[in-house]
Every structure is written in structure tokens, then in C-alpha cells.
């Protein structure tokens, strides 16, 4: 097999792999929110509440336990 043919296969399979990764990422984002493990939408507030002395938002952390219960 020539190097160019190998490059062609490598390029094709890498594209497929990255597409699968991207779709997996979409599923991961929605699933982790549904399970109550993360709340990505609250991260949007980082731009709004950006005073140096305002408390960090850090909502990628797990939600409080009562929210978890509600989401189950």
C-alpha cells in the first residue's frame, strides 16, 4: 500500500472518528444536564456577573442535592 493511499484511509477514518466524537459530546452535554450533574446554562451568567468581588459561578459543579432529586 502506498503512502498516499494510507493517507487517504487515515484522513477518512479520522474524519469519521471526529464526527462520532462530536455527536457523543452533544449527547454527553444533554445527558449530564438531564441527570442533574451539570448546569451549563448557568455559565452564561459569568459574562453578566463579572465584578471582581462577586462570587464565582462555577456551575459546572454538581447541582445542589434537591435539584438532583427533582431531575430524577
Amino acid at each position, binding site marked *: 500500500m502506498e503512502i498516499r493511499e494510507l493517507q487517504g484511509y487515515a484522513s477518512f477514518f479520522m474524519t469519521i472518528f471526529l464526527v462520532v466524537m462530536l455527536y457523543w459530546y452533544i449527547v454527553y452535554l444533554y445527558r449530564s444536564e438531564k441527570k442533574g450533574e451539570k448546569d451549563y446554562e448557568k455559565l452564561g451568567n459569568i459574562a453578566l456577573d463579572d465584578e471582581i468581588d462577586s462570587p*464565582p459561578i462555577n456551575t459546572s459543579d454538581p447541582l445542589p442535592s434537591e435539584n438532583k432529586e427533582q431531575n430524577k
Partner: protein
Amino acid sequence: MQSNAALEYDYSVAKLFTYTAILFGFVGMLIGTLIAAQLAFPELNYLLGEYGTFSRLRPLHTNVVIYGFTLSGVWATFYYSAQRVLKVSMAESKFIMFLGKFHFGLYLVAAVAMVLTLLMGITTSKEYAQMEWPLDIIIVVIWVTWGLAMFALIGIRREKALYISMWYFIACFLGVAMLYLFNNMEVPTYFASGGVGSMMHSVSMYAGTNDALVQWWWGHNAVAFVFTVPIVAMIYYFLPKESGQAVYSYKLSLLSFWGLMFVYLWAGSHHLLWSTVPDWMQTMGSIFSVVLILPSWGSAINMLLTMKGEWNQLTENPLIKFMVLASTFYMLSTLEGPIQAIKSVNAIAHFTDWIPGHVHDGVLGWVAFMIMAALFHMAPRMFKREIYSKKLIEAQFWLQTTAVVLYFTSMWIAGITQGMMWRAVDEYGNLMYSFIDTVTVLHPYYAIRALSGVLFLTGFLMFAYNMVKTMTSSRKLEEEPQFSSPMA
């Protein structure tokens, strides 16, 4: 030990880059307007001897607006917004302050050297990579310094989650770092020729088609990682902040980010359609360009939806007007580009004026609008004064919007006319028109483009005047505005 209450964000570096953004914006656009006029009225080529010719000034225009105006705008907004979204002040670390000031100082030296060398005709002749090797080395140092400052700020942050703008700034840093190094691998002709050539003139380490591929891998990704990624970073921070509305969908912003990163790097070969590049590579460039619509529109629609229920702000706040129109021009430009990358369309569009038309609805309508709006937003916070004149911003908005529309519509017509005339053959298969026939037909459109340049430049002068008055003589503010920027 300093308490949090005494801490303030430090905008000294952001201010320095704001000044250079205004300066280089004016210089770059002035040269752009002049060369647009030269295309319509060729006698304007002879104003300043060799230094005033189109061929000498065109690279100067592109380099000054890209690396002077745009990068200054990117770094001004970075040094402003990164502190805020990370909730950490540059003043908290002497090392970061040093890096920021060193970054600016070296950048200013390189920018002045770039202007002088290009004016003197010292160039590698590779589009958007014209700077010769000594400057390339300085640019690597500047870029690494920025990276150090960015990661040092990230390292001491209080806000653990990185806001989406930071992802885009990081991508800008990494993307340009990788591509710039590969594309600027060059050897001075003095060494390549065994002592006959010059130390100040270099040739690429790649040859022929390979050189073209690497060049456009870089060239297109200069558009991606200088004109798109950091500008998206800006809009994700400044539009929500100015409007007081959190980004419509944070998850969509994450998806669009990874989509953009995945797709953009593969699209560069669309610059080489119908050339000696392997056919499969051209097709790949076309396909990835079309797919690129999705992540681009993902961000743009996300921004428009951020204004959901708050569209009244569009009439009340001219900065929102600028940013919403910037987002709209981003959509137009990222739809137009993929259309041009379709091989059959490209057969007409390639080498015609439609291409600079496309570039300019992106750079004027998207990049420049967004940078000016961001600097306007920053001004009351950095200088603790309200914006000098709302009326002037309104007038500037309409003047510049008219300019952008005149630019791209005239170039659409010119480009398609040109492409059709170049290809037209008579019943025997002979070409129907010579090159000068197309030039004659295109003259009115070139004149319209020159006029649009004058309008946009006038608008930029209004922006510069408004900014200078804001810095020096506008009403002082007692406290920092939370969302909407105060203006007289």
C-alpha cells in the same frame, strides 16, 4: 495583604492596545481607500514614487488592518474581558503585568517594523505572510508572551469554569501558533544560493504545489483564527454584557465551538480550486467549506436569540445595533464563502472582484463593527467617563452600514461580470473579450468601491473622535455601569 474590596481590574494594557487599534485602524483603512481609488483612477499610483504604487501599498493595507487594527482590537478586548470572566485582576501578579506590557511593547516595535519593511518592498510575497524572517521571529516571541500571559491569568483565576469567550481566545492562540510556524519555514536566499542572494530575502522551504497548500492552509486559517475565532470571543462577552441578557444557549455555544474547530482547519484548499492541487483535496476543501455554515450560524443565531424579547434595545442602544448587525454580516459572509467554495461557482468567482467583496462584508461588517462596538463598551469602564456622543455613534452606524452595502454589492456585480466575460466564447470557441474590455466595464463599480471606502473611513474617524473625546473630556462617572453603556 490586599483585601478583595480594594482590588480592581487593571486596564492599563487594554488601554494601550485600544490606542493602537484606533491608530492602525485609521492608517489601514486610509491605505485601503487609496488603493481602491487607484484601481478606479490609475493615475493615483504616481503620487509618492515607488512607495505609492498599488503593488507596494496593497500588502501594507492587508497587514496593517489584520495585524495592526484587528490584533490590537483582539488584545485590547482580551486584556479587558479575560480579567472579568476569570474574576482576577492583572494587578494581582507583577509577572502578568510585566508580560502584558512586554507583549504590547514588542508588538509596537514589530508593527512599526512591519510597516517600514513592507513600504521598502521587503517581502516574502506570500499573501498575509509577507513579513520577512527577522519579523517572523519577533512575532513568535510576541505570540508566546501572549500565551504566557493568558495561561498565567487562567492559572490564578477565581472563576473555575472557563467562559466560552476564553475557549475562543485559547483557540486563537493555539491555531495561529501552529499554522504560523509551518507556513513561515523559510531560508534566506543568501544561504539557499551559496552567498549570491540576500540575507533579508527568503524563500519558502516548500516547493510548488506543496508550498501553495501550506500557504493557503495558513491563509484561510488566518481568516479563521484572526478574523473569526477571537471576534466570536468578543461577541460572546460584549453582546450579553451590553444587553444584560445571558447567552441564549450555552450548550449551543460549546457545540459551535467544537464544530468550528473541527471543520475550519480543513477548508483552506478551497483557495486552490481548479489549480494543480490533487482533485480529492479540492473536493474536501469544498465539502468542509459548506459544512462550515453549521458552526458559524450556530454562533450567529445564538447571538441573535440572545436578544429574544429584548429587541427594543436595538432601537435604544447603538452599540447593540452594531453588534447585532455584526452578527448578521457574519451570517452573510459565512454563507457567501461556502457558496464561492462550490467548484462550479468558483469557476466563475475565482480571481474576480467577488472575492474581495466577500472578504470585506466579513471584515468591515463583522470584524470592524464588532471591534468598534467592543471598544465603545469598554471605554466608560476603562476611562470612567460616559461615551461622548450617542448621536455620533448613530450617524457613524448608518454611514458605515451604507459603505459596507455599497462595497459588497458593487463587487458582486463586478465579480460576476468579470467572471462571465473572462469565460465568454464565440461560436468558434474564441474568447470574446480581452482583459482591458473587462476593466472598462468594471470602472463604475471600482469607483463605487472607492466611494464606499471614503464613507467607511469617515465613519472610522467619527469613531476615533468619539473615543478620544470620551477619554479626555466626557462627563465623569461615579460608578461603573453594569450593563448598557452610558452615553451623552
